[in-house]
């Protein structure tokens, strides 16, 4: 039972980071391979707050999120003018830089890691924050600000001509995603009670991005589903020891080949979302029938 609860908490923690990345990648169209870096910033700042300064956990969470947000804002100022692929590479460099800097700070344990942090993260924190962030993300995407982000993803030049400040919306998406990664990191540090720079390496960043793509770009319910499946999958196959990561990889490849849009890409698994997708399909079919009758 405790084991299952452990997995559920890991899912809950990762979900916050994945939802953030979903705003950046799924809805705004910017790919990042450096969000492990923002998670690391959140984790280490929160650990300093709780283990060294003995401040309340809630302050540690806020500080973890804010410092990751500020870091992303600085990175954004430099890199967001870059075109797609270059931005992606810049985030990769950032993630690695954070890891290497942390390796060299003895105050936080350096490369060997930092042990015996207080265990403050519990199921209530995770459930509470998950609910908050699902609602916030949902409300964002269904507002004019969120629609403008989607416009940036769809067609940058046309978004400009529709009066959308593309740079500002990219920045907002980046900062939001970093804050959420930072908060996930803060929860992680005070759940695992042990952090080490390699926990937030490029493999971690890639994992987060895979969860977003696997679940489906441009879908909040997809991101939730992707996180649940991909965090629990390696645990389910724990008996197969070294084969479990192969199964994980295979599952991702099969889904991406069979359903390139991800599990539920571009739609939401809500009554209204399903109705909308069905209406689009019907409207398309109707148009095809009409075109068929004409010829």
């Amino acid at each position, binding site marked *: 039972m405790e084991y299952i609860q452990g997995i559920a908490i890991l899912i809950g923690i990762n979900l916050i980071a994945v939802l953030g990345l979903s705003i950046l990648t799924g809805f705004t169209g910017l790919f990042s391979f450096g969000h492990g870096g923002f998670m690391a910033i959140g984790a280490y700042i929160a650990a300093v707050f709780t283990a060294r300064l003995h401040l309340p956990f809630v302050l540690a969470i806020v500080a973890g999120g804010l410092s990751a947000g500020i870091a992303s804002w600085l990175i954004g100022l430099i890199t967001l003018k870059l075109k797609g692929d270059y931005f992606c590479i810049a985030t990769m460099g950032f993630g690695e830089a954070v890891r290497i800097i942390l390796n060299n700070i003895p105050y936080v344990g350096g490369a060997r890691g930092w042990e015996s942090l207080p265990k403050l993260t519990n199921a209530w924190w995770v459930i509470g924050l998950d609910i908050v962030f699902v609602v*916030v993300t949902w409300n964002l995407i269904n507002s*004019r600000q969120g629609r403008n982000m989607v416009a940036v993803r*769809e*067609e940058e030049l*046309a978004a400009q*001509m529709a009066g959308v400040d593309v740079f500002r919306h990219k920045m907002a998406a980046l900062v939001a995603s970093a804050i959420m990664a930072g908060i996930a990191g803060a929860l992680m540090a005070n759940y695992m009670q042990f952090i080490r720079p390699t926990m937030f390496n490029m493999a971690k960043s890639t994992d987060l991005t895979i969860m977003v793509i696997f679940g489906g770009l441009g879908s909040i319910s997809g991101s939730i589903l992707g996180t649940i499946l991909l965090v629990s999958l390696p645990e389910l196959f724990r008996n197969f020891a070294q084969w479990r990561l192969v199964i994980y990889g295979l599952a991702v490849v099969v889904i991406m080949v069979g359903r390139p849009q991800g599990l539920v890409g571009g739609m939401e698994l809500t009554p209204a979302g399903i109705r909308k997708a069905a209406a*689009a399909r019907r409207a*398309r079919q109707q148009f095809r029938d009409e*075109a068929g009758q004409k010829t």
Partner: protein
Amino acid sequence: MSDSPILELKQLTKRFGGLTAVGEVSLKVREGGITGLIGPNGAGKTTIFNLITGVYKVSSGEILFQGKSITNGDSWQIAQAGVTRTFQNIRLFKNLSAFDNVLTACHGAARYGLAEALLRLPRFRREERALREKAIGLLDIMGLADRADVLANNLPYGLQRRLEITRALALDPKLILLDEPAAGMNPDETLHLMKLIGEIRDSFKLSVLVIEHHMDLIMGVCEHIHVLNFGCTLADGTADSVANDPRVVEAYLGAEEE
């Protein structure tokens, strides 16, 4: 119709390296008028659109919109000021429905902030409802209401063009730039489009600058025509005077009659 120009280009020049794409072009778009911009391929028509809308930086010269300079402004600010456009190669938000394409472009009509959106405060709900009504109204006027749910990518070509114009209208522009709106249309559709451009001008009280190769469309709807050749002004005047200008006939219309 007043005679004061809503848009004025003064000795506008754009050089790409050693190539002068647009050389000292001066042009006026009269308020409430439909002005045509024509010329052979490579004459610099689309470049002028890109300069007006801030996609390219101006090498020299000035662009005045309602008497104020918008030279080298940011595209999105120019759009919010009231100049919007369509593209030669249609640029819709392809994976969004026709309704969402228009709804997105309506964003300037709402004032609610991010916090109000995240907390769903009353102002968010009220303004969001108004945006939806506006989008539906526009689709209705443009005859796209029955296609509101279709993904933009799945619309037939002619309707995609019309949706792009609808999306541009959602910004409540004062000046709309149409880049070859009839490209790929048959004569029937072109005729329909001519009527539509006139109707839009009248009902939305805006001014139009249109690039076109279809001579019927240009001669049919434009009160004023500006002819470009190799980046420079060749002629400028009413449809009749331009059509009878020997230089124009030689450079452009002559080639068409072959």
